């Protein structure tokens, strides 16, 4: 007669093995019949590293942030959450002083300007968010864009804590009821995932520039930072360029340009 203790131990062992087999059986590789092709789409934009340059003085003169923000937020089905504290923002305005530390400004001889600058995800070269994500739900594409996989995100918000630029927003509630006007053919997100600016990847595949660039009246430039002939690369060498929190060493892809001979406004 088997003792109760041995019976329990044996059935536990069999149970675990059984569960393990069941679990592993689900790990079959996807059928080989599914092929996907990289059709060389001539219209799609490609780059070594996508980047953005904000021409600060031009922006101050000719850009309307409310237009830029509304275009971006509408196209991406970003909700308007009634509680301001839990707002979802892909692009925001930040006080000039908040963007660059005093030491930085004095060092490069740029006076304080009275302007609010557009800030969004910097798509850093060595993104802190990508390093800390425990599921690789946020990852860096070969073209430099830091993308989000909303299917995989577990909502731990470590990326939000790690991002030095406060670029990320979390869905504290289901966003769908709070979207003013749903843009068809672009998904929303669901509650419990983190989201952020994606440099309008969906537009890049069609050869279109990001919406903030389009709506900026020429004050925000977009292109390949690795290509010395691109608009952005040429803009960078035409004046002084600052990036936010440079001392952290994550090398943002969003640069703020101050042309020579700027005025004290």
């Amino acid at each position, binding site marked *: 007669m088997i003792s109760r203790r041995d019976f329990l131990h044996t059935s536990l062992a069999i149970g675990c093995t059984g569960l393990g087999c069941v679990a592993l059986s689900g790990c079959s590789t996807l059928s080989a019949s599914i092929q996907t092709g990289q059709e060389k789409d001539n219209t799609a934009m490609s780059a070594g590293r996508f980047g953005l340059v904000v021409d600060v003085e031009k922006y101050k003169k000719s850009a309307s942030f409310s237009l830029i923000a509304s275009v971006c937020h509408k196209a991406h089905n970003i909700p308007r959450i009634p509680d301001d504290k839990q707002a979802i923002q892909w692009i925001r305005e930040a006080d000039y002083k*908040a963007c660059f530390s005093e030491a930085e400004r004095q060092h490069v001889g740029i006076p304080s300007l009275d302007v609010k600058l557009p800030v969004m995800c910097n798509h850093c070269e060595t993104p802190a968010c990508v390093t800390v994500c425990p599921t690789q739900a946020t990852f860096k594409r070969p073209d430099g864009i830091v993308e989000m996989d909303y299917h995989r995100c577990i909502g731990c918000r470590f990326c939000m804590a790690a991002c030095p630029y406060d670029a990320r*927003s979390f869905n504290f509630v289901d966003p769908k009821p709070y979207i003013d006007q749903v843009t068809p053919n672009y998904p929303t997100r669901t509650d419990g995932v983190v989201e952020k600016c994606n440099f309008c990847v969906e537009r890049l595949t069609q050869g279109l520039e990001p919406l903030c660039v389009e709506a900026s009246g020429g004050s925000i430039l977009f292109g390949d930072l690795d290509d010395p002939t691109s608009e952005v690369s040429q803009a960078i060498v035409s004046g002084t360029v600052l990036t936010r929190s440079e001392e952290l060493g994550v090398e943002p892809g969003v640069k703020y340009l101050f042309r020579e001979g700027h005025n004290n406004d």
Partner: protein
Amino acid sequence: MIEKALSGSRKYYAWLAFLLAVIGFGVFAYIRQFNGGLSLTGMSRDVSWGLYISQFTFIVGTAVSGVMIASLCYLRDKKQYLGVVLLGEFLSVAAILVAILFIFVDLGQPTRVLNVMLHPSPQSIMFWDMVTLGGFLVLNIFLGWVKLSAEKKGQEAPSYIKPLTIISVLMVVVIHMVAVGLHMATTFIYPGLSSAEYLFSGAMAIRFVATAFASGAALLILVCMVVAASAQFKVSDKVIQLLAKTSCIAMIIGVIFYILQVNIAFTNDMTSHQASLLNLFVGSGGQSGIAPFMWVAIALAALGILLLLVPGLRRNKNILLMAAIMIVLACWLDKGLASSLGEFMPNSFGQITDYAVPINEIAVICGVYAIGLLVVSVLYKVVFAVVKAPCADSSECIGEQRKDV
């Protein structure tokens, strides 16, 4: 042996029933949160990690430190310190479980939690957190249970227990490293300044670990005192004094390095470092934010250290109890409340976002702690039934009379 937890006194059943009721409330509150989203907590876009994660950081440090000290004692003298090491191991089992649960209730998409294992990310410190905590949990369950079984059979613990205990001690060191690493991966931003200087300082790392040991040892003292009073399970005074001295020294180290941090920041005029500290201790923009809690923590820490430092005071049971509570409370206020929340304030626009704690969040937190208390009560019940601790104030403690089961 688990059947020993199924029978007990009236008080025991009443305690379990109370805990189950609290757990029930917690589960109900969590279901509300699961359906309604994390908006049912006080968290916001600026304060994206709130009380759940701050409890996690506090518990992890505290849990593993207590058991490390107990294990080191056990390695020196198995007989004398069996009681305290069992208390420590099962306490850490419950505490790690609580820590894991706090992470779970904090997730936005908890049903996807297995993604962490399906898509392992060794570059992420959180991945290593899960691995080391999970491993430590299993190790402690195993170690505690084997020691207990050996004690019940009246045998020596098997030979593999010693190397495994050493591994568990080393794992505590690793867990501390991972915890510090996780804390340092977070950045907090103030107008134009990041918290890098404050967080990435060596003084911060040492302070983090030192306060963990201080609260871990103090918590173990409290546990020993509670079980002595409620279950007549007495751990030797020698061990309690050792824990008290450890806690005192660790807290002193923690306070010294905090003072050093302040010193470094202000004498070298490190603007962002200063900003972080001022934000914690003074608040910002006219609002005090988290500052009152920091000052209370300092007062408690100072008093606690004093009470533990003076041998005459330390040997007095009542004073020791108060001192241990003060140390735990001071560390909790620092790590579980102020540092975790205060570092998010002010946000990059200079505003202090208030953190109004909804009842739902409190209910979930209480529920999680109640689960921990339930696990620890059940495990301790088994320990008390198996291990006889006859010592009053003598140095011998364990092992003479074993309950016949």
